[in-house]
């Protein structure tokens, strides 16, 4: 019994190229550990600020009253659910091209968080729908495609769980992640392509914002908090995956003998 050798080390020209230095688990593991706490702290701080703006600074909406304040959770969650999926697909493509184990680990580490965001977006959207549309759920294009996104996350995780061999699990999952990425633009543009109940995009880089500045700030701060949380959660999970997958390698054994020094 001995450890499979690092595939990153076999990359042509890998030793000279700096970026690949962190492409191998044993170098990335301590880095991830160091990044962990800053991420958590940032997430907590931004979340506090964002919620403060959202609930105390932002004005009450003329038509919707206070129920609109769900927006401060709903929109960041919806954004993150799409971003995380794209990130997963990105890591899978990197993994397939460069054959780095770490990229696949990143991808599987991101999936549960992405699923969580998709679920939160669906949940808050449904709660919001009751007061505004009079129903929790309608079969509108955006809602449906967001639901599909959630199922894609579930499918990705179920597929990986069903395969024992990590290599095969990685590659099969990658296929789903990449093919499913088609869904993300559909979610984003659905409000444009079909005329639906759901709100169109009101935040855009090119046009002037159509909502109150404080609302916008609250949303953006919350979005940053969600980013920080996502990065933190992904790093935490990727560390766990690394340990679990490489538990028979020397560096993990040394880590275990080193008395759990985390960084």
């Amino acid at each position, binding site marked *: 019994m001995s450890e499979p050798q690092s595939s990153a080390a076999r990359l042509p020209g890998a030793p000279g190229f700096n970026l690949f230095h962190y492409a191998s688990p044993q170098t990335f593991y301590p880095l991830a550990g160091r990044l962990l706490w800053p991420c958590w702290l940032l997430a907590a701080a931004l979340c506090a600020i964002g919620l403060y703006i959202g609930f105390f600074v932002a004005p009450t909406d003329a038509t919707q009253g206070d129920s609109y304040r769900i927006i401060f959770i709903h929109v960041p969650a919806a954004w993150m659910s799409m971003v995380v999926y794209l990130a997963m697909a990105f890591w899978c493509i990197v993994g397939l091209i460069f054959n780095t184990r770490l990229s696949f680990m990143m991808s599987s580490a991101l999936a549960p968080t992405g699923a969580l965001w998709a679920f939160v977006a669906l949940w808050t959207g449904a709660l919001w729908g009751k007061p505004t549309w009079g*129903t929790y*759920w*309608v079969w509108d294009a955006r809602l449906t495609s967001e*639901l599909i996104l959630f199922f894609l996350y579930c499918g990705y995780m*179920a*597929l990986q*769980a*069903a395969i024992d061999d990590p290599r095969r699990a990685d590659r099969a999952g990658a296929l789903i992640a990449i093919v499913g990425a088609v869904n993300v633009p559909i979610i984003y543009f659905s409000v444009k392509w079909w005329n639906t109940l759901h709100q169109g995009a009101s935040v855009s880089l090119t046009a002037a914002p159509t909502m109150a500045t404080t609302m916008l700030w609250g949303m953006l701060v919350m979005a940053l908090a969600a980013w920080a949380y996502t990065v933190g959660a992904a790093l935490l999970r990727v560390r766990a995956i690394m340990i679990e997958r490489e538990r028979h390698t020397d560096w993990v054994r040394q880590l275990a003998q080193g008395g759990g020094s985390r960084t």
Partner: protein
Amino acid sequence: MLSVFATVLRRDLLLAWRRRADVLTALGFFLLVTSLFPLGVGPEPEQLAQIAAGVMWVAALLATLLSVTRLFESDEADGTLEQMLLSVEPLAVIVLAKVCAYWLLTGLPLVLIAPLIALQFSLSPQETGIVCATLLIGTPTLSLLGAVGAALTLGLRGGGALIALLVLPLYVPVLIFGAGAVDRWRAGLDVDGNFALLGACLLVSLAVAPLASAAALRIAQD
């Protein structure tokens, strides 16, 4: 006899545990089908509430149909079925244990998730209660009848579709009594009759299906 029942039950549950995804995905299938129908049919809430019970029942039926094919398949392929036929224990008991495990893994979760789906279709609490109760009595019947179909088509080509053809006619009464209960309740009629009939279906299939499946398996092996 009891011990072989317990062992086979435990064995099938353990096998399913090894394939956790299986249990989750059977559920996922049910969820998806019930979500697909509104998509196909159109989103008017009243119309949806009208057809909700029907859709949930059809989905449960299809979820069973889709998975019951595999009830004996793997045991046949690897030769375990031969060993079951050769066992000193009665084959019907082994079959019953397999069906129980199957229902616990596919029928029960579906009954448990049903209230959520009823919510999605905006059913009232009473209607939800009735749908779930009919599913609770009805799904074991579906599993038992499915087992007969699975045993009959074992080793035949055509598999899934052929099973559907054999078993669906038997499923129809269950479907009618089950899905009909909510409609009767809505119409202000009483639903005891439906429950009694569903119960009778369950009892009859409980008595007949294991024996019939066992017989079919013996024939399939010859």
